[in-house]
């Protein structure tokens, strides 16, 4: 790609995001040195950071560390170190990069990372999480807390599901009291949950801005930039401030009719995680075609708020449980993901769907061929299927991806029109329960 084709994406929010994340790493380094504040590692999907905030515990997100390593082209060395230990070529490379980095003392910023007081495995959909934190706990010799969140196998969580998660959250509180030697402060917890609900409202409004033409930001690439603060600072006033600034910036851009780059020629939905080791290259490939993501599933890993869910500060435990159970893409079932994408295509006026298969992540990728079949054959949505990896730089074939992308965009001709997903042809595909009640909206 020539220099002239390289797009510049940076706005004020990118700078603010950077400052917040640098500050997070600074505090992690401090905690590594002084033991204060205590740190707990947890996972991004449907996380319960509100409880940590209530105890002033610093969250460590190994996924964020892993993706930072990949973006900075530092993931291969720890991946290879992990493979020497016995990890397979086909294990999730996030885990390998993280474990390899732990054992070799590699960190994304060069600063120190604290040994967590607890490995809190919030099992929210991804089975790899369980293995990952079992290994973290073994290698770092830290206690493990399994927070088992039932997978969303019905339309809505049942009462039993909610009770089960709430009881475990209360057990977690006891564990956090032990770690911090502090009594649980219910009001602070409510306050943290209130911050989250504010951030969610702001974030959701940002996400609805991309329904405009042109979209003022890219709902895949720029949304990813905003995801760091969303996980680390959601329950904190700094998060509220950040998302206020982000909303303001994007609203102003929308008012001026500005997109993230030049002119918007294609509106897309992107499904699946990005190839972090080639993040910029990948972004440029879309920019070259004037293709802007107006919605993405990956940006809903931590939480899915654009359809209305907010944490309820008056029922904080239930709210956290509901969020973990039902309002993030990873714990929702595969057909619910189809439905989420279908709504994006229709309500965000997209012209096509990009499915990015990443080898590391079976949670995202297993079955994406069936997804493609559903969108192309049943709904008539043009779909492009690409393959690479989220973390491992060895699985990115730039020429191949570029060719496929070029062919895809060329096939639209000169005047791409928004598609209305046509109604699916086959009735009764989802009996749900034996009596046929609770059909999925996907096929109505």
């Amino acid at each position, binding site marked *: 790609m020539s220099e002239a084709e390289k797009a510049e994406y940076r706005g004020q929010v990118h700078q603010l995001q950077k400052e917040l994340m640098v500050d997070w790493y600074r505090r992690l380094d401090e905690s590594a040195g002084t033991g204060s504040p205590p740190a707990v590692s947890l996972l991004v999907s449907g996380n319960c950071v509100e409880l940590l905030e209530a105890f002033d515990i610093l969250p460590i997100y190994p996924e964020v560390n892993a993706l930072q390593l990949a973006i900075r082209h530092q993931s291969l060395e720890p991946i290879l170190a992990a493979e020497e230990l016995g*990890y397979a070529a086909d294990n999730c490379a996030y885990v390998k990069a993280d474990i390899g980095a732990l054992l070799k003392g590699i960190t994304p910023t060069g600063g120190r990372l604290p040994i967590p007081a607890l490995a809190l495995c919030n099992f929210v959909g991804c089975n790899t999480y369980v293995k990952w934190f079992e290994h973290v706990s073994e290698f770092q010799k830290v206690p493990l807390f*399994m927070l088992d969140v039932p997978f969303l196998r019905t339309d809505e969580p049942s009462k*039993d599901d909610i009770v089960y998660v709430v009881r475990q959250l209360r057990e977690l509180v006891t564990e956090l009291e032990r770690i911090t030697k502090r009594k649980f402060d219910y009001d602070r917890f409510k306050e943290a949950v209130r911050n989250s609900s504010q951030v969610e409202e702001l974030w959701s409004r940002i996400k609805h801005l991309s329904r405009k033409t042109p979209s003022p930001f890219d709902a895949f690439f720029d949304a990813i930039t905003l995801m760091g603060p969303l996980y680390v600072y959601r329950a904190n006033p700094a998060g509220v401030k950040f998302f206020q600034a982000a909303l303001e910036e994007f609203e102003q851009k929308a008012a001026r009719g500005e997109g993230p780059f030049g002119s918007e020629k294609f509106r897309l939905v992107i499904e699946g995680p990005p190839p972090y080791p080639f993040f910029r290259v990948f972004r440029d490939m879309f920019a070259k075609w004037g293709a802007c993501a107006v919605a993405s599933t990956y940006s809903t890993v931590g939480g899915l708020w654009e359809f209305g869910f907010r944490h309820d500060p008056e029922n904080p435990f239930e709210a956290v449980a509901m969020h973990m159970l039902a309002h993030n893409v990873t714990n929702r079932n595969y057909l619910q993901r189809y439905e989420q994408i279908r709504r994006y295509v229709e309500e965000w006026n997209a012209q096509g769907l990009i499915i990015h298969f990443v080898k590391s992540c*079976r949670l995202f990728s297993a*079955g994406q061929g069936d997804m493609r079949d559903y969108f192309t054959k049943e709904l008539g949505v043009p779909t492009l299927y690409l393959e690479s990896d989220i973390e491992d730089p060895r699985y990115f074939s730039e020429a191949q991806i570029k060719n496929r992308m070029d062919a895809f965009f060329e096939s639209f001709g000169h005047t791409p029109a928004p598609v209305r997903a046509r109604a699916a042809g086959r009735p009764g595909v989802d009996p749900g329960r*034996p009596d046929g009640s609770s059909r999925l909206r996907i096929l109505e």
Partner: protein
Amino acid sequence: MNTLAAGLEQTFDQCSALIRDLEFPTVVRWKAEHPGAKAIGYFPVYAPTEIIHACGMLPVGLNGAGDALDLQYADARFGSFICSIVKTTLELVLTNRLECMDGVLFSSICDSARNLAFVVKRNFPGKYVEFLHLPHNPNSTASHVFLASEYRRLTQHLEEMGGVRAGEEALNRSIAVHNENRALLRRLYAFRAAHPELLRSWELYALQRAGNFIPVETHNEWLAGALAELPARSGKRRDAIRVVVEGAFCEQPPIDLIRIMEEAGCYVVDDDFVLGRRWFTSDIPVDGDPIQNLADSYLDRSVYSSVRHDFRNPRHKQLIEKVRRCNAQAVVFLTAKFCEPAYFDYVLFKRELEAAQIPHLPLEFEEKAFTFDRFRTEVETFVESLLFD
């Protein structure tokens, strides 16, 4: 179907034929003999078959399709880096081979199977497709309450579907007959460990796996029959090493692969083939609330497995105990290609085995494999290195 084929050899041959037959002849026949009754398939590794049985239905353990099916559709639906059983199971659905099933159960074993459940749901119209969340947190007492509620949800659906109420008595009877099945299998495993020259591993494998397709009562007769006849068999001990096989708990290896492992000099003294059939370390109680007993047993009485998480007693420690208990000399990892839970566990297993100075051989298979030359060479080399050490 109720008569045991004359002689042990024929029984084993009959079982090996049955487990390869994608027409599910025994299921079709059972349904013909029980007009209106339903058959419920379950994807590995474990399912509470007692509940299905108590609802007057036939539980059928699905085991992929081996090498008997060419993938025409499922490869494109699941793409690269996904294990074979996920694809063959979908292929069975898409080619109408599972029409004799009225429903299919899946559970929380791994991400591929999780997505498969819902892809099957979309592509299996009119069938009951259910996903059970088997808890990952046995530490919490809440998981006992939760799992019982999950089992009640299943029971209610099956009752509505089949029109038969599974009362306490029926459930306890089902538990008893399944307890018997597991006890017989435990005895057969113990017999093989003591007399590997009298019961070959491929035979035990076929006999056990055939139980996936027949009523448990019939399987009990077959197992008891085999136990009665086995001691009279004759066989000569060979120079072989005693090994534990680990890693084939979900996708199942081709029977010839097990045969070759034995020919190449291994006495398999314990394994995790078709693990769901031997899921409990001891009997499930048959008094009290059967649903709660089933749930409690899952949480407190299960064998260790890569798809069940119990950090009170880590599986890498249990593997070492198993090796010591059955006096094995080595471990052979027979891992299904792209089986992520098995891949992950290998790391800690390996570390633990090396610390305990127990040799091991990591091998990979696919259910559809049909040439085994390289496999044979690797096993032979490994065996020789131990025999002539």
